[in-house]
């Protein structure tokens, strides 16, 4: 797995991917990267605008869904294609999980940006947040397109 940030898996109607990271934060960041690259190649996009994101959830899987859903919401409402993600810390406190982070990207310009598809939502179906024997984290997500 070394060096691989994410990979897409087969799903008939929708997009399914796995994201990896040496830390949980990195795996969450790579899941966000996989999410946006399912819609458009973000590798050449400039990260000009930034949004700060803070989320608290009852469990780690819900935290992941809410993190990705918030990015989709900002993508649609603020019209930003995010390509860089930074999560400072994922914490467990008083039985709840929280994250603080930011996402940066470029405002949508329909003349230049050609989307392959639109991710509508992040589902709980086959959702996984796991740590393997080597200590590496992996995440599995099915999104509705």
């Amino acid at each position: 797995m070394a060096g691989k940030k994410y990979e897409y898996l087969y799903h008939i109607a929708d997009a399914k991917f796995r994201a990896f990271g040496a830390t949980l934060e990195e795996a969450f960041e790579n899941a966000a990267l996989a999410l946006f690259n399912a819609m458009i190649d973000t590798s050449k996009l400039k990260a000009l605008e930034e949004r700060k994101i803070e989320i608290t959830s009852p469990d780690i899987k819900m935290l992941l869904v809410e993190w990705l859903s918030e990015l989709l919401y900002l993508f649609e409402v603020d019209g930003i294609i995010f390509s860089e993600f930074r999560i400072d810390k994922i914490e467990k406190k008083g039985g709840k999980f929280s994250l603080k982070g930011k996402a940066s990207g470029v405002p949508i310009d329909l003349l230049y940006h050609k989307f392959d598809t639109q991710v509508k939502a992040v589902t709980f179906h086959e959702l996984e947040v796991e740590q393997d024997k080597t200590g590496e984290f992996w995440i599995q997500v099915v999104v509705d397109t």
Partner: protein
Amino acid sequence: MADGSIKDAASILTKVNDYTWDIPMDYKPGMRVPGRIFVSSKLLESLEHDTLTQVSNVATLPGIQKFAMAMPDAHSGYGFPIGGVAAFDRDTGIISPGGVGYDINCGVRIIKTNLTVDEVRPGMKELIELLFHEIPSGVGSKSKIRASDSELTDAFLHGAKWAVESGYGVKEDVEHCEENGYMKIADPGKVSEKARKRGKPQFGTLGSGNHFLEVQYVDEVYDPEVAEVFGLHKGQVTVMIHCGSRGAGHQICDDYLKILDRATHKYGIQLPDRQLACAPAESTEGQNYYKAMAAGANYAWANRQVITHWVREAFTRFFRRDDLGMDLIYDVAHNVAKLEEHTIDTEKKMVYVHRKGATRAFPPGHPDVPLIYRKLGQPVLIPGSMGTPSFVLHGTPKAMDLTFGSACHGSGRVSSRGAAKREFHGETIQKELAVRGICVRATHPSIIAEEAPGVYKPSEEVVDVVHQLGIARKVVKLMPIGVTKG
């Protein structure tokens, strides 16, 4: 054969008749009713294992009646299968956002014209170009309407009726919509600010994915008597609009999945898949979702109504005539939950029927069928995929017996969107379709590749199962001549 399809489906399923296969109760622990899949032996070959798992998961939900069902176009989704029908008792059952899906009231409408295919075909390229520009589509596209907060609230409340009263259509349009274009239970107060923000700039937009606007013609008439009442005859041009509630609906589903996820724990409901999150149907959480879902459904009816208006304007401008007879034949939802009365074991019961990728198909005489169609049954509109035929059917009493008054919703995927892009090349498909007389205009070629005709089950095959079962009967076949896609 699709990846993940079942090699030994026949050994798992019990054959009831040529088009009905049951998943026995012992297939999965916790099943309260058997699963029932309506397919031909040929469609059975492309049925995925995941679809069986998902149907049997639905069968474990509290208060489920008769069977967890899958229509002939069924394929695996997330939580509930796509092409799924499940009814839950009002008092002992549940309601689930996953049983409706993210695109609340994704649906289809057909508008007729008095133009013939020979009149329209020569200018098709220019006409489709005009429609592509007049009706915004694709990721990031914005509406031409700047809706105010109060207009948005009105649309959530009154759906297509709001649109017509705002000048987008005529009053006959709402009479020809399922629910007369709006569910009265809707409560915009149950819709989040986030859903409002997503919905506000998107009125009258098609969206992306499998949504489309298609110019079609009547290629074959199966039942001339019914066709005449529906106002359809051979060679006539029609327009089909397939879209839903856009970001507003997605956000409503998203919001309530989280709320119902907590409710699932609160009410001690055991779930095999978290995406099936649900609450007792009559609980506060369940009803709040139902009222918000209805608001989302109304948004979708308003959306299709606004698009209809722009389609009429475009045709009038293009043909320089305003006597084109562009009446709405009907508008159906295929992602929705409804409280309906059904007869179960000779007893009349109120049930929440969840149709996720399934079309309501009510019989002759049903009070919810518009008066002009009541003798014949509800028009059932089944869109094809890009380049394949669509169908109009009519409802029958048998659907009430077998499927809670439901039929299929389309042709059903057999290949993933990702696989489609590897396998098909958008520009090549565009050329092939052009040779067959179908003009496609999309935002760019890969959109065409992922919706290529080859990624769907043949629509004829799916509709024939519905027809043979008798849960709806074929009236006409519509062939596309022009398609716009997001």
